């Protein structure tokens, strides 16, 4: 199986009033967790939407599993999954009903056993007959992650997956994610504003600001390059003087 899961070259997305992405190039390999970081409005969601085939780029190249997400959307969709705070499962259905529906959509074999295993992994087995709308924010996040693993994805796009979790549960989720990622040799594109979490979970980081790449490398290398103590300090530096840094690096 090819190692490269995602590749974009000089990706641009221009709206009438703003440039959301400006020559963004990224690569994500199998078995790697790539952190896509940046302040609000940096272009993270735009990049993820393009990879998912939800948004057409203005120019540039995008390949997921070596294919265009616009001409091969369905073959790609079977092999990836996505979780985000703004994509919820229907609140008026039970947890088990939602997972059954998505199991059918993804053609999951022996889905009942699969659902039970995943509910256990994310410690939400006790919620299977609860109404999704009655779950807490943290429980909903874990349910969304359960849905994400139904199709054994080779590539996972996670947009702030632990945003609404308490520290203990966030740790449980990170460990579960890391465990499955290692077992399945999965590639994960991860966005988060929790810098210690990013340092812990990501193998590599891509910092973007105003749609442009500001820095790329392992968390340790980036911290060293920016002469900082932590990723949080790097983040603040980038937000406060991102444009300047980019011009210097560029």
């Amino acid at each position, binding site marked *: 199986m090819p190692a490269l899961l995602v590749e974009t070259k000089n990706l641009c997305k221009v709206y009438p009033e703003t440039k959301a992405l400006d020559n963004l190039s990224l690569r994500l390999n199998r078995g790697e967790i790539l952190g896509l970081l940046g302040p609000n409005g940096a272009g993270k969601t735009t990049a993820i939407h393009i990879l*998912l085939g939800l948004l057409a780029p203005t120019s540039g190249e995008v390949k997921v599993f070596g294919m265009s997400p616009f001409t091969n959307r369905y073959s790609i969709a079977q092999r990836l999954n996505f979780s985000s705070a703004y*994509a919820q499962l229907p609140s008026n259905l039970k947890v088990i009903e939602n997972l059954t529906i998505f199991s059918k959509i993804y053609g999951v074999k022996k889905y009942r056993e699969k659902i039970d295993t995943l509910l256990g992994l994310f410690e939400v087995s006790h919620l299977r007959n609860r109404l999704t709308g009655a779950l807490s924010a943290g429980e909903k996040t874990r349910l969304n992650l359960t849905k994400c693993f139904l199709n054994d994805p080779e590539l996972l796009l996670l947009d702030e997956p632990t945003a609404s979790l308490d520290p203990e549960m966030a740790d449980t989720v990170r460990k579960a994610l890391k465990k499955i990622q290692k077992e399945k040799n999965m590639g994960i594109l991860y966005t988060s504003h929790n810098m210690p979490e990013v340092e812990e979970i990501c193998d590599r980081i891509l910092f973007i600001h105003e749609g442009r790449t500001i820095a790329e490398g392992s968390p340790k290398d980036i911290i060293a390059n920016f002469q900082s103590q932590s990723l949080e300090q790097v983040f603040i530096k980038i937000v406060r003087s991102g444009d300047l840094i980019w011009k210097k690096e560029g």
Partner: protein
Amino acid sequence: MESVNRISGMFLRYVYLHKRSLPRTFEIMFWPVMELLVWGFVAVYIQDVSKDTFSKIAVSLINAMIFWDILYRSQQGVSISFIEDIWTQNIVNLLISPLRIWEWIFATFLYGFLKTLIITLILAVIAFSLYHFNLISNLHLYLIPLVFNLLLFGWALGIFTSSLVIRWGHAAEALIWGVPFLIQPISAIFYPLSVLPPWLQVISRILPSTYVFEGMRAVIQTREMPVEYMVTALLLNLVYFVLGGLFFNWMYKQARISGRLGRLGMD
């Protein structure tokens, strides 16, 4: 087989909604039953004051009311199912899944068909109980092609209104309810085509619904229906289906360029 799985998954998604919500299930029946009660008693009144002269008109009115509801509900079945996933912020989960758009739409057809079938049965029973009106004995086997064409046109309208929602999101919601009422006055539902002014008749003739309602009145009046009515309705429905599909595809592409597709349900 994979398509069957995905369609059954989406069909289940809509059926589960009713298991969870009694008011939602009740709402399906509420408006059609209320309309039938009003129109049914109007028809009874017309029949009483005019004796035989207008009795067929009264029968046509009740029939027309039930048929209008079939058209309206089949359109709503598609559009409301679509918008339901925007309301619940589930649409992105579906758009990034292997679910094909045609499979999704087909599931909404099936769900709409089931809903329409249940409502029509309830209306037929009420009409029989209160007004001694028998839908089957009035229309015989002609009932099948007439209802089939109404369902087709309702679904084609549903694809059209869903396209507007895909492109403009919540802003286009009002059109889901409004578009069927745009065609109501010119579909010759409660009155014959000849009542309309000539220029409006020209527009009316490009709607499949006009041929269904004209056909329905022909059966009630003469016990026979000109075949060309159903053939024309069927051909027009095919045209509207193709146009609806092309329009949906175009709107989908536009939403993908503007970024609206990924933001559906977020505003």
